[in-house]
């Protein structure tokens, strides 16, 4: 067993180390890959203070709990806070695999089956690997240090038993994370099912905040009622604790909570700690048994899910007849070869989850924002010529540029092997690059047109000249943004699957970050011009003139930028090819 674990650890180390060792990549590519790989390291370094603080907090809290002279009420509140914290942590740890959606999904799992290793061993190694999950990694030291603090505080036996409970709770979390990962991997075994799942997840995550805002006042009232009820519950519990000192405050609070809550692992763990410190043997035994039962159940379930995963082949799913036939499309004023690249880029994006949601979700979100805004700002007087409808259209276009960042900032690598086809075809560098820009423009145009359309339907007021100026400002932003994202795509390419969430579908971290902050920065000059002309000069025509000037500047930047990009692309094409084809 140790030999197998050693072999696995060695394999993972070599894979990460060898990622930087390839003779075929140029030095810029090596730097790009190193920076991409270092991003999680920086994240990890940022987590270190959190881990240390939580561990120190765990020791301190344990120490206070373990001291016999600690005031009862404060100890009870400590337990309550920990119970809440652990419940939130459990939920977070379980949601993380859904968003990440990559662990255990690859063909490497099936490849490992060919080795003379028992499935149980493979399963155990996957469960242990859950400790590398950042959320669990942050929680683990605090959970272990808490019982140690109890022991230091004077309750050595309580600390030892609490440590057993903590280890069982960590095992439960590891098994739960693994089970969630395996289930998601099973979903991802079928491409169409995976795409639907990801789409639903993106929609739910995007909409959740807005939905809360939409229900607005009712939600606030509901919260207030709950707060009152909670206050009453605590007061009642404090009163009950005074009446019956044999019961802990937590036990009294339990009476205010649904009965089933006490069976949650985080609750059972805290009851173990509480009972261990207070010496309630029966409660201790029952809750240790409950933790053991959870561990067994999750172990059996995760083992079953893992075995199902190993036996389930990857399939594409049933795709409807796309029925475009051999039809070719042309665009006015665009060469056929450029149009071919543009439509290929657009089709590829619209057949991925990220592409679909980036293009078709913005107008829904902007419409919801309008509904929220109109309630809050109905009495606000806008400068002459402006309207909320224009605001919706403009905001939609703005968010479209941001949400298309995974596509535009990695536009070569997302083509995968299709990129080779473009390099083998009789296309000049300029045609490839312009094709990519036009393809991105088509995506932006679809989404922005939907947003402007919904804005116009909801509030068509405002000056047509200002509407035109708003549209031209977006065009100008795109003309600068497009070559900028081409530059990022050429310098920081990364293999990405646009039907996945998390890092699997994201561009290289630096490219993604720069593309993300570029959009608001590009808005500043034309927005300041528009604000000055509308609010100080109060002239829609001046606003249009300002937008036209900015459009001219953007056009000049575009032309110069594209020429420079042609030179850069020629230098980078071999590396781009290697990345796109996954080498």
């Amino acid at each position, binding site marked *: 067993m140790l030999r197998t674990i050693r072999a696995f650890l060695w394999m993972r180390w070599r894979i990460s180390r060898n990622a930087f060792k390839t*003779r*075929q990549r140029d030095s810029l590519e090596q730097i790009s890959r190193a920076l991409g790989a270092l991003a999680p390291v920086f994240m990890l370094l940022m987590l270190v203070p959190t881990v240390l603080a939580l561990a120190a907090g765990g020791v301190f809290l344990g120490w206070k709990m373990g001291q016999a002279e600690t005031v009862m009420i404060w100890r009870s509140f400590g337990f309550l806070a920990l119970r809440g914290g652990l419940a939130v942590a459990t939920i977070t740890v379980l949601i993380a695999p859904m968003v990440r959606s990559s662990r255990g999904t690859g063909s490497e799992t099936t490849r490992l089956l060919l080795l003379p290793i028992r499935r149980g061993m493979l399963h155990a190694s996957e469960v242990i690997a859950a400790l590398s999950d950042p959320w669990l990694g942050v929680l683990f030291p605090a959970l272990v240090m808490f019982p140690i603090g109890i022991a230091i505080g004077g309750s050595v036996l309580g600390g030892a038993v609490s440590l057993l409970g903590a280890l069982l709770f960590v095992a439960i979390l590891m098994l739960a994370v693994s089970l969630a990962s395996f289930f998601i991997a099973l979903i991802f075994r079928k*491409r169409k099912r995976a795409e639907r799942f990801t789409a639903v997840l993106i929609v739910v995550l995007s909409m959740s905040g807005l939905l809360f805002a939409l229900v607005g006042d009712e939600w606030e009232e509901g919260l207030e009622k709950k707060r009152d009820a909670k206050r009453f519950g605590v007061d009642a519990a404090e009163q009950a604790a005074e009446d019956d000192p044999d019961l802990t405050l937590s036990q009294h609070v339990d009476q205010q909570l649904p009965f089933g809550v006490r069976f949650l692992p985080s609750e059972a763990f805290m009851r173990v700690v509480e009972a261990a410190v207070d010496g309630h043997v029966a409660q201790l035994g029952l809750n240790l048994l409950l933790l053991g039962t959870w561990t067994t159940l999750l172990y059996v379930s995760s083992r079953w899910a893992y075995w199902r995963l190993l036996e389930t082949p990857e399939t*594409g*799913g049933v*795709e409807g*007849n*796309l*029925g*475009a*036939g*051999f*039809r*070719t499309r042309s665009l006015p004023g665009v060469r*056929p*070869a450029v*149009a*071919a*690249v543009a*439509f*290929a880029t657009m*089709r*590829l994006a619209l*057949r*991925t989850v990220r592409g679909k949601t980036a293009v078709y979700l913005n107008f829904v979100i902007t419409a919801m924002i309008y509904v929220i805004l109109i309630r809050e700002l109905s009495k606000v007087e806008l400068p002459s010529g402006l309207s909320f409808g224009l605001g919706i259209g403009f905001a939609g276009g703005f968010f479209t540029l941001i949400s298309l960042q995974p596509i535009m900032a990695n536009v070569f690598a997302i*083509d*995968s*092997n*299709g990129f*080779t*086809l473009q*390099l*083998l*075809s*009789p*296309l*000049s560098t300029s045609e490839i690059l312009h094709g990519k820009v036009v393809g991105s423009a088509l995506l932006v145009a679809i989404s922005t047109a939907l947003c402007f359309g919904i804005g116009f339907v909801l509030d068509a007021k405002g000056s047509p000249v200002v509407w035109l100026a708003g549209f031209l400002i977006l065009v100008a932003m795109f003309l600068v943004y497009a070559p900028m994202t081409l530059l990022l795509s050429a310098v920081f390419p990364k293999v990405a699957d646009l039907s996945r969430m998390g890092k699997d579908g994201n561009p290289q971290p630096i490219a993604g970050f720069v593309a993300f902050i570029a959009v608001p920065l590009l808005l500043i000059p034309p927005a300041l011009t528009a604000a000055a002309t509308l609010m100080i000069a109060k002239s829609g025509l001046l606003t249009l003139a300002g937008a036209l000037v900015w459009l001219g500047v953007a056009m000049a930047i575009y032309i110069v930028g594209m020429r420079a990009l042609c030179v850069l692309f020629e230098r980078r094409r*071999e590396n781009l*090819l290697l990345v796109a*084809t996954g080498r």
Partner: protein
Amino acid sequence: MSLALQTRGLTRHFGDLTAVDAVDLAVPAGSFYGFLGPNGAGKSTTIKCLTGLLRPSEGEIRILDLDPLADPVGVKKMIGVLPEDLALFDRLTAAETLGFVGQIHGLSRETLEQRAEELLTLMELNRRKDSLVTDFSHGMKKKLALAVALLPAPKLLFLDEPFEGIDAVASRQIRNLLKSYVSRGGTIFLTSHILQIVETLCDQIGVIQHGRLIAQGSMEEMRRGTEDGRTLEQIFLELVGAEAEASAALDWLT
């Protein structure tokens, strides 16, 4: 004898590794040229240099009397390529892929539809023409990639392992198609590890090992000076010195 493809001192380095080392190829127009070599010998790198995917470190290339480094688009208009990674967009359908290539090559709609229908029928893909490439098996992808290479009716075809992963029926159909293409004046530059197929199809052979071209000529020239009746496989193994290595070791293997 006019040459469809010629290289002089073609060299490609990757860092301190020389993948292709001063290769002088001479592929006659209208010939079926088999480019052979063990794994890692430099076959695919050579094809990538010839088709413009990689820039040679040194040397000259002439393809159909054009310099691909000076006029890459002009050369690409006249060649068709089946590369090792198949070069297909995962999320386009088979029909859209052919439409994309046809549009880039400037084919009229009628020509595109006629050629694409014929090619898809030949490759037995016509019933799946509106399915995404990502849902195809490896063999289906290879057939589609071959259809893509043939669609613009190129004068020179580069085929990197065209028969690997293809079923016997399709393999036979493709072999007949390629023979017919050469008989009508086309030139094929093919790499394959299936030496029996190479022997039946190719009239010109080149052998590369460790990046260097170690033999080149017609089948008759390759057989000259050897015993009668020797197969291409025997000649190839002798050239690359593999027979002695294969029989030397692994005596522990029961």
